[in-house]
Every structure is written in C-alpha cells, then in structure tokens.
C-alpha cells in the first residue's frame, strides 16, 4: 500500500467519524468542533488530490470564518446540552433510516456502473495550483468574480438589517 492510499483511508475514516460525532453529540459546541475536524479532513483530501488553492480556501473560509461565526452565535445564545431540544426516539430512528435508505440507493446505483471502477483520479498534475486557478479566475471568470463581491455586499447589508434590534 502506498502512502497515498493509507492517507486516503485515514482521512476518509476521520471525515466520516467526525461527521457522525457531529450529528450525534448533544452539546452544540462539540458539534461545531467536530464539524471543524470534518473540514480539515476534507482539506486534507484536497491536498492529496493536489488541489492546493481549494485546500487553503477551505481552511480559511470554512474552518476559519464560518465556524467561528457558528461558535459565536452558539455562545451568544448560551446553548448547551441541557437546553438542547430532543426529538422523540421514533422520529430519530425514522430520520436515521431515511438517511440510510438514501445512502443505500446511491451505493446500489453506483454498483451498476462497471466502467467507473476502471477510472483513476489523477493525484498529481497542475490542475489545482494557485497559478492555474488565478489565471482562469481573472480572465475567463472575471465577471462572476466581480458579481460575487456584489453578492457579499448584499449579504452583509441583509445580515445587518435582519440582525438589527428594534421594530
């Protein structure tokens, strides 16, 4: 087994285990921390596939900014395991079975595809490097890039307006 394969399995187990812990843990703060672990594992997968730009962006944007926002909101509301609302046992079971059925259907559909098993992901190659993506982002996709800034401005204004105290 090569290093890549070992790292792939390690990161996959880490991502899936942390995702399960996130869904099952009672305390919302622990859920946020487990989700950060999932994001780091996914960033590890990006590095493994040599998508360096997306790995860095994933850590900075998700683990750095979005998760801190979640953590602040949870601490602001003073949520903990005692105040956590719980569904009853049967509804939880039904939700888990429904999600499991989705997984089952997808995997069963995937098993029918014979050609897919022969195709390999290229783990090296210059596709995800910052130089390549920067060239494309500032030439072909410069208009969507600028529109994204307008989107951010409107999201910022919207968040301030919605979060404002009073009427």
């Amino acid at each position: 087994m090569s290093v890549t394969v070992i790292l792939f399995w390690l990161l996959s187990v880490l991502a899936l285990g942390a995702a399960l812990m996130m869904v099952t843990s009672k305390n919302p703060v622990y859920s946020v921390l487990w989700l950060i672990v999932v994001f780091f594992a996914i960033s590890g997968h990006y590095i493994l596939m040599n998508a360096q730009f997306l790995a860095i962006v994933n850590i900075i944007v998700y683990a750095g900014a979005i998760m801190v926002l979640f953590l602040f909101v949870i601490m602001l509301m003073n949520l903990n395991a005692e105040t956590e609302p719980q569904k009853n046992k049967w509804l939880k079971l039904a939700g888990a079975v429904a999600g499991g059925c989705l997984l089952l259907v997808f995997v069963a559909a995937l098993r029918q595809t014979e050609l897919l098993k022969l195709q390999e992901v290229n783990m090296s190659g210059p596709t995800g490097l910052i130089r390549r993506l920067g060239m494309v982002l500032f030439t072909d996709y410069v208009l969507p890039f600028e529109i994204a800034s307008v989107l951010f401005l409107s999201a910022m204004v919207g968040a301030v307006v919605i979060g404002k105290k009073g009427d």
Partner: protein
Amino acid sequence: MPINYYIILAIALFSIGVMGVLTRRNAIIIFMCVELMLNAVNLLMVAFSKLHYGAVATFNPYASTGTDAQVFVFFIMVVAAAEVSVGLAIIVMMYRNIHSVDVNFLNRLKH
C-alpha cells in the same frame, strides 16, 4: 485512487448530513448539516475535475482541463459564506423573538 472511492465517500458524507437534518431539532445544527452536504458535493466536484484531467494527462500533461470545475467549487464556497451570514442573522432574530432555536416552535407561520 479509483473514482468510485471518492464517490462513495461523498455520498456517505451527504447522507450523514441528511440524517442530521432529519434527526435534529436545533436550527443551528440543521444549518451545520447543510454545510456538511455542501462540502460533500465540493469534494466530489474536485475529484471529478482531477478525473477529467487524468483522462487528458496521458496525451498532454500541461492541459488545463478540470480547472473550470475548481473555479466552480470556489464560487460554491463564496455563495455558502454569504448564505451562512444571512442564515445566522435569521436564526439570531428567531432566537430573539421566541427565545429558542427549536424548529418545532416554527410550525406556525403566523403568530
């Protein structure tokens, strides 16, 4: 790595996200599960971009195939960041009005 390993990993992460949305009542945790589903799809998209590159790389190692997919992943992250800021503002407003983040209290649209 064969592509179907990545597909199964992304499907499993997505299904765990769906399970979380269906089993939890805390609005913030549901929101976090939606983020998890977005990330599963991003991972799949990057894997497909590298697959697409690998199909071309044998003829031309300097091909720029698959770069577009990663730009799209970048834009998904941009939209997700904007979505989170507005969504958390809505949850904070909801907490201020009904002093809870339990989604079961939101089953009546008028109040």
